[in-house]
């Protein structure tokens, strides 16, 4: 046999990477914007950032910076990072992740200094801003994890909005009727799971297009909760719509760490559950038998099937689990944020969660970070409107959507979802 002449087939690794200029150019543009607008054209007034809160070990002094100086310094640093990335791009390599994160943090700081110093009351509490961001992110993160569980196992979950809303409604209803917030929380998980089960049944058993089911389910849940709200809750709020609050459970000692304590360790049970669930989903997807099978089912269900994995059962339960998680996120609205249910109170956050899922590239940690970013933008919008800055709050509120559009358009790196996501699996 003459195999000597066989040459190895060219593999992807042999091919030289062509330098990508997209990210360096975007960074450069942002850096110039920061330098010019936040720095050179910035305000001469100062911005004050409060860092302290009541029970800290040490009362940190407030950070006072001049808008223009802060803008120039951050602008300069940003230009340096952008320059570095341009230099790297010439050799075909890219920035390390930490540098991109640093870029983001610096840019945001420059923006804050500019926006706050230009405001009528140039004084915000940084701790409060961050804490508020986390709070606003909580339902988003639960929702986005629901999306992660669905899509990683091959079911597109557009019904996150419905799961959040269903959870919020059930938590309020059952919480009020039983007088027990924890029972409300469980009811929320069950409601979210039920919404998910409808999605799963229609998508997996009846092979209905998953996007259709998702869209229609959102309408269904909105209609159902709206109807019951109008028909039952409005008539007798005391009996049906005054749920007890889930109390804050500060963690001793940890809560007194300056800045970090108030942000992370003065949460309700839902907040602590969040840390656990994010880590658990991430770890389990990566390192357990369930995770391996889930990923396989989302990428190549037939391969999994030929190895004896029950594709549709696994999908069904994963989607259901996701719904339960999103339901808990929904409970946050009625058991922590405000102690009552109102119509359509999830207000499109399910779709922001979907956006976070894509921006976080279907990775639980990434999706959670993206959700945090969106929560930050949301909170910043309201904080800045109080400060009285020139930026219309609507534009900050748009940010998550615009960023997501840029992300799916491939301007912020290429997103690649699970290959079989949205594909029903039909056993022959």
């Amino acid at each position, binding site marked *: *046999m*003459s*195999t000597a*002449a*066989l*040459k*190895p*087939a*060219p*593999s*992807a*690794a042999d*091919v*030289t*990477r*062509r330098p990508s200029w997209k990210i360096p150019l975007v960074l450069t543009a942002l850096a110039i914007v920061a330098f010019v607008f936040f720095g050179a054209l910035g305000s001469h007034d100062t911005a004050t950032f409060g860092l302290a809160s009541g029970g800290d070990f040490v009362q940190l002094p407030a950070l006072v910076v001049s808008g223009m100086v802060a803008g120039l310094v951050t602008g300069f640093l940003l230009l340096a990072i952008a320059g570095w990335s341009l230099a790297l791009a010439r050799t075909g390599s890219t920035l390390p992740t930490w540098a991109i994160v640093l870029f983001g943090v610096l840019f945001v700081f420059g923006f804050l200094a500019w926006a706050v110093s230009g405001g009528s009351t140039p004084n915000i509490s940084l701790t409060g801003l961050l804490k508020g961001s986390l709070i606003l992110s909580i339902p988003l993160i639960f929702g986005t994890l629901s999306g992660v569980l669905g899509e990683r196992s091959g079911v597109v979950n557009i019904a996150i909005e419905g799961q959040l809303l269903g959870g919020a409604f059930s938590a309020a209803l059952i919480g009020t009727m039983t007088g027990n917030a924890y029972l409300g929380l469980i009811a929320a998980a069950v409601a979210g799971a039920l919404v998910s089960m409808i999605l799963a049944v229609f998508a997996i058993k009846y092979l209905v297009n998953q996007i259709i089911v998702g869209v229609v389910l959102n309408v269904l849940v909105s209609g159902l909760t709206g109807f019951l709200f109008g028909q039952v809750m409005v008539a007798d709020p005391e009996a049906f719509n005054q749920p007890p609050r889930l109390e804050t459970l500060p963690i001793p000692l940890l809560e007194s760490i300056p800045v970090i304590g108030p942000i992370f360790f003065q949460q309700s049970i839902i907040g602590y559950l969040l840390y656990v669930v994010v880590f658990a989903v991430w770890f389990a997807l990566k*390192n*357990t*038998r369930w*995770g*391996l*099978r889930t*990923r*396989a089912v989302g*990428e*190549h269900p*037939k*391969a*999994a*099937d*030929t*190895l*004896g*994995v029950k594709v549709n059962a696994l999908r069904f339960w994963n989607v259901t689990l996701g719904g339960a998680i999103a339901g808990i996120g929904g409970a946050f609205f009625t058991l922590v944020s405000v102690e009552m249910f109102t119509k359509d109170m999830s207000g499109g956050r399910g779709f922001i969660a979907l956006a976070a899922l894509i921006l976080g590239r279907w990775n639980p940690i990434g999706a959670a970070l993206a959700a945090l970013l969106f929560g930050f933008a949301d909170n910043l919008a309201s904080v800045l409107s109080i400060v009285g800055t020139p930026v219309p709050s609507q534009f900050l509120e748009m940010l998550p959507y615009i960023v997501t559009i840029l992300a799916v358009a491939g301007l912020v790196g290429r997103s690649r979802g699970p*290959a079989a996501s949205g594909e029903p699996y039909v*056993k*022959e």
Partner: protein
Amino acid sequence: MKLELDHISKAFGDFYANQDISITVEPGQIHSLLGENGAGKSTLMNVLYGLYQPTSGRILVDGTPQTFTGPGDAMAAGIGMVHQHFMLVPVFTVAENVALGAETTRGGVLDLKETRRKIREISSRYGFDVDPDAIVEDLPVGVQQRVEIIKALVRNAKVLILDEPTAVLTPQETDELLEIMRQLAASGTSVVFISHKLREVKAVADVITVIRRGRVVGEADPKADPTELAALMVGREVHLNVNKTPAEPGETVLKVQDLAVTAANGQRLVDGISLEISGGEILAIAGVQGNGQTELSEAIMGLTEGRVTGSITLDGKELVGMGTHQVLRAGVGFVPEDRNVDGLVGAFSVQENLVLDLFDTEQFSKAGSLNLKAMGANSAHRIDEFDIRTPNAQAAASTLSGGNQQKVVMARELSRPLRLFVASQPTRGVDVGSIEFLHGRIVEERDRGTAVMIVSTELDEVIQLADRIAVLYQGRVVGIVPADTSRDVLGLMMAGMTQSEAAVAADAHGPTETTAIVEEGGVL
């Protein structure tokens, strides 16, 4: 392990894909299932692997009847399968793919150490050279196939089913696979080798079972006369030699010069091809799938997503830079390699598909409005001319058989005056009767003075149709040779040797196994 299929039947609705099939596979035997595409071989194996439930009949392992409700049961009984389309998760590592479904865990956490050890062990035993931590999608096709074999062996398969395993391999890779099969058999593993390629089956099988139209039509000795086997397989005496007169080439019509197609990731899919085709001749492009043929024809048609450099001229007119629409209008007919993906809109009617690239011509439309009358007349004419078997012109193309679908595509492309006709895999998955018809039409088009380019991975088709043969390897033309070049030489060229190297090698080593039969039998 002795495996018996006892009077197995499998029906889909009223249609019987398998009918009363009985087969016995002895331990350590290489048992070949030989049959045409669509004969029911894969259905049978899917029954055996638990993917389908048999309509009637029994499966016996070492004499004990078994019921397989899913692949898990089959695996537990010692049956492993390498599917024609690999069942590998592309983004997983080799180890993850092998572990999937049979994971070992420690304290709930996945433990891939043991899996890696097993992979290395099997890999070294059979000389596979597979890295457990490589990502599968980065591996060449031949190596992916070995991962599939490892998957089965890790699960202690005593019977290994290989479903058309050589379809994606070079002749030389095929020889390596045959050697692996022998090793497996020698170590006691039975191999069920499913193929429609007579030469390979004859080279390796201990027993050959021939299947036609869902039934066993005979069991044959590997030493049987290939002509007989072929006749058994297709059900009648086959005359696959195309009746054609020697070509009378006219002026050069297509001229390709230094053509290169570069993918977005920088890979050179076509790497400097130059060739010419004259009017009235057929140039066949031979090569193993994935060596630039697809990209070459796409570049001509203005379809490629890669970056094209070099020049393609049609009667002196530059085609590079033109859109597909302009290329078609310039007088190029194109039959894409996968008709279901590129050639037809399945949900469209036959009538609509017959004008898929002509609907906006003056003949079929006026001022943006379709001329349904002209479309109807056209379809009636083509259906008659090409003997397209369809209930009526309004039937959706997807309801037609493969052969008739291909006729729709051909009829459309040959229904207008052409300068160049490009056909990729013109008869893939097409029944024998239609193959003859389609080959006849291609030769007819040549005789009309059209330049014809046939892209085919089937050496038989290449040899039958070609006036000249260009062999592609890794995006380059390794040689353009006359149609009467020996299979041996062509096979070696398809693996990257130049014609002279190949000729020397072929002489020195004698005919390779898979090509040897040609000289004996001369058929297929």
